[in-house]
């Protein structure tokens, strides 16, 4: 009896007939379940976490196991009729859809987002980005947290706000952080901050708050709720404006006490708390207070000039049509002699001398600081604007001037009926002069009565320019600072701010220089200027011809043109 030779093909056939240890369909079904679990767990936990990764790994391993245990079945599976149109195709389809969901879940978790709008609707504009960069670089500025309260029904608003908040975090180098809180789930926080859904709460991350948050992260319950410090809130409507958010951040981190005493004058600029100028500066802890002679000199007054407890103070005369009294002049003299800071902005003389024309005042200023207000009103044909020869748009503001440090290059400062400022040739040696703005060489002066009479043309006997219209002086011995402005216009910023006009910056610059703000540790220009009007913000206007053309194209040319083409095509092919 001989042994039959082994037939390799038979052996191979025998091998093929051995069923796999575990039927492939079971392994594939389990893999499908695992892959479905990936996006479900990611959605449930709002992140591609350990469970999602675990399910993904399990699914992949099951796939590999299938192929290893049943390689030929796997190959036949993918090419066979069962896969293409059998019941297995349903499993494959589910598996494929689950795989697509895995890809989607992974990418969604990365939250790759970009704002392509020209108007930076969902990202920081350059001005805000610069301010945030300053914040990040300044070690004295505390950390800020933005709490955004959005319910589940406000997913749309949350989607649109999150890229902007991410930008704050990135631009500030992490100094500004954010967190979304669902007020429906975290009722305690919503009540503690008294914020409506869609609103924001901004505050300083105090050491107590940081410790409390760390304790919560470690799972330790807190005895009492610890809120952010120095909080400010924004409504849902305000939260959609990044300027509002940035200004609030500036407001809550601003430190220091700075007082601006606005002396009550006749017919001067109305610097009330409602004025845009005052509101802009109060964001950074500048306090505006209306004062008069009694407020400053009474025995029981609360106000102390040259108060060492303050970080800075200045006495501001924003215009004034009446001359100062002897007592008022004496007050100014005493204040400046003791190292105080004064800003005097002039109004033109009427029938009576204005505040800036007070003889005793000018005599003192000239002798002490080498400055005084000149006669008349400066007319500058080169720099006049708005059809009025007495309204000047001063360009080329001195970039080397400290008092004009906030005025951007290429910007103009509007000065209405400015008076010239005279710098004495022989002034004390301890006085440093800083000229902020001057008129053109072809400028000249006229008196107000002459202008009222219509005599604006230059005469031979008129004083000629250039004239200084914003000048600052510092007594290097006493530290006293004086700023004279030929016009009160820089303090009427709310009316004159706009594209390329920097009156607000000029006013802020004068005040900050006068009180020595540059010596304070907080970054100097912490206020956010209003954005220039963007083309996309311009309202739509159309004349009747434009409307008629648009009407014709939209309602007739396009739709009926297509219909006519269709009709022609149908007509030409109707026989075929």
């Amino acid at each position, binding site marked *: 009896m001989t042994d039959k030779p082994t037939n390799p093909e038979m052996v191979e056939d025998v091998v093929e007939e051995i069923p796999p240890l575990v039927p492939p369909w079971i392994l594939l079904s389990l893999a499908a379940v695992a892959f479905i679990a990936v996006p*479900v767990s990611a*959605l*449930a936990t*709002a992140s591609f976490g350990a469970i999602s990764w675990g399910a993904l790994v399990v699914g992949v391993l099951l796939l590999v196991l299938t192929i290893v245990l049943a390689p030929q079945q796997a190959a036949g599976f993918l090419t066979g009729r069962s896969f*293409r*149109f059998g019941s297995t*195709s349903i499993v494959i*389809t589910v598996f*494929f*859809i689950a795989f*697509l969901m895995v*890809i*989607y879940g992974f*990418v*969604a978790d*990365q*939250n*790759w*987002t*970009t*704002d*392509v*709008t*020209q*108007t930076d*609707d*969902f990202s920081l504009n350059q001005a805000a980005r610069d301010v945030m960069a300053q914040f990040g670089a300044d070690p004295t500025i505390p950390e800020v947290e933005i709490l955004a309260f959005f*319910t*589940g*029904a406000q*997913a*749309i608003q949350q*989607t*649109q706000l999150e*890229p902007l908040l991410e930008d704050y975090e990135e631009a500030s180098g992490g100094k500004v952080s954010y967190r979304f809180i669902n007020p*429906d*789930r975290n009722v305690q926080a919503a009540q503690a901050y008294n914020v409506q859904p869609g609103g924001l709460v901004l505050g300083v991350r105090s050491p107590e708050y940081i410790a409390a948050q760390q304790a919560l992260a470690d799972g330790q319950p807190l005895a009492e709720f610890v809120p952010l410090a120095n909080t400010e809130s924004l409504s849902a409507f305000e939260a959609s404006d990044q300027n509002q958010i940035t200004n609030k951040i500036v407001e809550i981190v601003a430190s220091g006490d700075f007082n601006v005493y606005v002396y009550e004058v006749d017919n001067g600029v109305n610097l009330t708390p409602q004025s845009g100028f005052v509101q802009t500066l109060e964001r950074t802890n500048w306090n505006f207070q209306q004062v008069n002679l009694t407020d400053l000199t009474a025995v029981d007054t609360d106000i102390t000039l040259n108060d060492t407890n303050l970080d800075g103070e200045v006495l501001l005369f924003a215009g004034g049509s009446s001359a100062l009294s002897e007592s008022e002049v004496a007050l100014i003299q005493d204040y400046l002699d003791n190292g105080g800071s004064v800003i005097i902005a002039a109004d033109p003389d009427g029938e009576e001398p204005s505040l800036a024309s007070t003889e005793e005042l000018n005599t003192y200023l000239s002798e002490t600081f080498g400055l005084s207000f000149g006669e008349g009103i400066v007319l500058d044909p080169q720099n006049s604007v708005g059809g009025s020869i007495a309204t000047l748009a001063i360009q080329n503001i001195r970039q080397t001037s400290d008092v004009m440090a906030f005025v951007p290059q290429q910007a103009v400062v509007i000065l209405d009926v400015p008076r010239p400022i005279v710098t004495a040739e022989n002034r004390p040696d301890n006085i440093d002069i800083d000229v902020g703005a001057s008129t053109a060489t072809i400028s000249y002066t006229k008196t107000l009565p002459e202008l009222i009479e219509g005599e604006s043309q230059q005469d031979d006997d008129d004083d000629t320019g250039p004239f200084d219209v914003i000048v600052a002086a510092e007594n290097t011995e006493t530290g006293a600072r004086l700023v004279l402005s030929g016009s009160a216009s820089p303090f009427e910023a709310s009316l004159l701010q706009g594209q390329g006009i920097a009156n607000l910056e000029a006013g802020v610059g004068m005040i900050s220089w006068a009180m020595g703000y540059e010596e304070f540790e907080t970054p100097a220009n912490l206020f956010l200027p209003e954005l220039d009007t963007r*083309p*996309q913000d*311009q*309202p*739509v*206007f*159309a004349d009747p011809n*434009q*409307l008629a053309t*648009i*009407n014709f*194209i*939209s*309602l007739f040319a*396009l*739709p*009926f043109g*297509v*219909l006519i*083409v*269709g009709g022609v*095509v*149908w007509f030409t092919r109707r026989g075929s």
Partner: protein
Amino acid sequence: MRGIWAVFKRELAVYFRSPIAYAVAFAVYFFIGLLFVGNLIQVVAINTQLLGGQGQQFGQQPIPATVLFNATQLITFLMFLIGPLLTMRLIAEENREGTLEVLMTLPMNESSFVIGKFLAVWGYYTILLALTVVQVFLLSWVGALDAGTIATSYLGAWLYGGAALAVCMIWSATTEDQVIAAFLGATTILVLYLSELGAEYANSLTASGDAGLLSTIFRELSLTAHYGNTLAVGLVRAHDILYFVLMIVGALFITTRIVETRRYRG
């Protein structure tokens, strides 16, 4: 590739010979034009009044041109009608006429057939969408638009349309009856369009106002959640674009499986 191209060319030519395609285009353009012109006249009147000092006491702000651009939003809204109308005959007609088997004798597989059909209808939709750019030029004539927003709005509308058309193709492959295919396609698109409302409804049913995973699923499935609040307003999220792409891929995969099954089962 050759098969895809052959089917694409054939089908695209059929669209431009089909009266339905022109009727759909006319209706879409007329509807968009009607709303556009009506809104424009109203806005110009309001802005003119504000310029004259009227209405400011009510806090009314002047209205810019960006508010008036509505072509892409309207087209995506109308996809629940446009999609079924354009796709209802795509495969259903082949099934009914029995020409599917004839086509399958050509040297191409089912996936090429389906992809070619899809590209043809998507191509027609692309042309339909592209002509609405007339509104952009008209608005730029009387105001200023945001170029970034316009670009992403069109990109999103194009992808949205592709996804809707791909989903409608599933029903066209499922049935021989074009009306049923159109109806089911319209229903599906409408459900996906309104899915975000489903999320809000789910939230309203819970005591905490947040239905958690359920509302998240509804929202992630929604067509509008991936377009109306993001791409349409200039906010580009990678997973929004991926959503539409994967929707197209998934729908075409399902359609291919259906065609194969119907073909080999007779």
